[in-house]
């Protein structure tokens, strides 16, 4: 019996169990501190649907052995470009949303291709270089947002200045286009974002199915043992580039879905630290530097977003001070440090 419990704990992972128990405690506490249980659940679901695809986008690169995608900002930039251009074209509704995604995919493929080639040149040091490639591209795009010739009065500064605003509202274009798609209202406090969840499920399924195709299997083989893959006649470098493109495209779509739910397109330095929560969520779901699955994405995003939603509201009520920022930093970055210090095979 003891052995069995031990093996169960090992298979689920101690961090996940601790976080899960903590979460259960938080949910139990809700009625006592005067927070509605159903609104909390609703917040968690909404946040899950917002962030799911961004977390999902990390999976292909982990599978191909490129490690955690600390350069997630490249995909985000492609997504921002898509969103901003679609608004410039004055497209609304589904047309606007899918045009944004289409344009974003185009940029993501180009950026992902270049990014993939770079990562092939620096095998073994992907993560630290990717971090700074991500950071510097965000700073570079900040310059671009200032000087690119956008004209839409909804996006540029009102007082005659040039350059885009730091946050652009997509309210008149495609806000909540997925969220309100077949939205299910349970009571007055739970609004289940059916469209967003379905879209996330669709992409998850596509990724899952992709890794069962011939190319997908080749990518997974590359990740688990690149020498073996080479001896099987797999073009390792090409597989890695494909996985990087896939990751970048998914993160571009991810940020558009995020904006669709959030209501604002955040430019300039806003994407700077976006990879870290996504990575932390994936790791919290049980992934490691060399292994990740859709299951990890779903569990991780749920746990992480639940912690993020619940801790501030509960703590604020108990000790009357907002420690959420510090706790968020400790949980998410601690998770990443923990994963980085786990022993994995040497390439």
């Amino acid at each position, binding site marked *: 019996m003891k052995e069995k419990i031990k093996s169960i704990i090992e298979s689920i992972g101690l961090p996940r169990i601790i976080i899960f128990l903590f979460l259960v405690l938080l949910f139990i506490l809700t009625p006592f501190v005067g927070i509605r249980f159903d609104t909390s659940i609703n917040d968690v679901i909404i946040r899950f649907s917002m962030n799911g695809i961004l977390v999902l986008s990390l999976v292909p690169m982990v599978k191909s052995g490129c490690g955690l995608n*600390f350069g997630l900002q490249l995909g985000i930039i492609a997504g921002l470009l898509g969103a901003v251009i679609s608004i410039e074209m004055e497209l609304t509704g589904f047309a606007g949303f899918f045009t944004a995604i289409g344009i974003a995919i185009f940029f993501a493929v180009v950026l992902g291709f270049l990014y993939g080639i*770079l990562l092939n*040149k*620096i*095998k*073994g*040091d992907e*993560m*630290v*270089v990717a*971090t*700074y*490639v991500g*950071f*510097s591209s*965000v*700073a*570079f795009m*900040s*310059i671009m947002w*200032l*000087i690119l010739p956008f004209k839409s009065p909804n996006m540029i500064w009102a007082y005659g200045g*040039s*350059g885009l605003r730091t946050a652009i509202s997509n309210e008149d274009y495609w806000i909540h286009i997925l969220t309100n798609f077949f939205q299910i209202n349970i009571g007055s406090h739970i609004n289940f974002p059916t469209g967003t969840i379905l879209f996330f499920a669709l992409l998850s399924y596509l990724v899952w199915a992709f890794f069962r195709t011939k190319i997908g299997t080749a990518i997974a083989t590359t990740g688990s043992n690149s020498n073996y893959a080479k001896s099987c006649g797999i073009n390792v470098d090409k597989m890695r580039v494909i996985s990087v493109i896939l990751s970048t495209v998914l993160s571009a779509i991810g940020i558009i879905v995020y904006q669709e739910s959030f209501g604002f397109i955040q430019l*300039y*330095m806003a994407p700077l630290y976006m990879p*870290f929560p996504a990575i932390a969520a994936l790791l919290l779901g049980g992934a490691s530097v060399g292994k990740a699955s859709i299951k990890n994405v779903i569990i991780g995003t749920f746990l992480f977003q639940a912690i993020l939603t619940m801790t501030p509201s509960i703590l604020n009520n108990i000790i009357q*001070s907002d*420690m959420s*920022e*510090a*706790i*968020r*930093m*400790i949980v998410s*970055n*601690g998770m*990443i*440090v923990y994963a*980085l*210090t*786990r*022993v994995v095979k*040497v390439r």
Partner: protein
Amino acid sequence: MKKQSLTKTMNPGVQFLINYAVPIIFTILVAFAIPLSGLSNEYLVREIMTRLSRDSFLILALLVPVMAGMGMNFSIVLGAMAGQIGLIFITDWQIIGLPGVLLALLISTPIAILLGYIAGIVLNHAKGREMVTGFMLAFFMNGIYQLVVLYGMGNIIPISNSRILLPRGYGIRNAISLVDIRQVLDKLIPLKIGGILIPVVTLLVIAALCVFIIWFKKTKLGQEIRIVGQDNDVARISGINVERTRILSIVISTVLACYGQIIFLQNIGNMNTYGGHSQVGVFAIAALLVGGATVAKANIPNVFIGLILFHTMFVVSPRAGRALMGQAQLGEYFRVFVSYGVIAFSLALYAWRKRVEKENERKKIMNYRKAFSQSSNTTGGNKF
């Protein structure tokens, strides 16, 4: 195939260009930006002098871990945190002037040693990816720092001075004035040359650190650190405790960074409690890399060349941005871009070269094996 042969067959000129790509690009950049900014030479010299005394200690703190083969120590941020905690205490106790600075150094040293020890242990568990781990560790510790300073101080840790406490009674204010210790080190021996203040004592301290580092390389510990940096296995065979040596090198770096941050802040004269330390690592590392250092090799000239080039760019870029595009904001973003970009570029360049060299090595071994097996075939003995 063409790229693989780059490092082997290139003539020395091209080799030099690749080795020093970052400093060369930077020199050109700065040479263009200075006239554009329209700043006077005197102003520039004064600014550079200030930044020389302010930042070089922090950059020098990076050298020891590079020697130990641990790359750029992104976790010097931990040292900066320790330094700031020391400064918070002396401000609370209202100890002013030079004694204040010395006491801050004294208080923060054990904290820095502890943090450095933790960082060393964590980095030992992440061999081969020390840099990204150090970077994430700095983020993680930032959370702990916030917890301690924003919620613990005034609550659990006794702080009574209402000037630095938040109105709610606990937690430290976002900005702390260090006017009581402002530039006490810089102005200890007042010296002015042509209207430019020379911070004699600070420069002497920095020079002493340089001498210390040169001396340290020659000590037994210094030698051991260098052997560990060359090859962990060789070091282990020769009886060196690799883990302990690596931890020591991080501890030294963290303590130096702690002193560096105190020197930095006594020059500035006020402290951003929650943001002051977070960029320390990035700027110090970017400056060192601009000076021509790599992940595996960094020396004292790299520190000063890098510091002068990097900070000249920092001073001139907002004005150059305004002159060029009519927007100062552009220059602001540009320098952020350059700081991050320089790190990305140098790390990528180094990683790429390392891979090419490894590949060449592998080929050499393969060729050798081929030749060997052929020769053994001809003699009839097929042992392999």
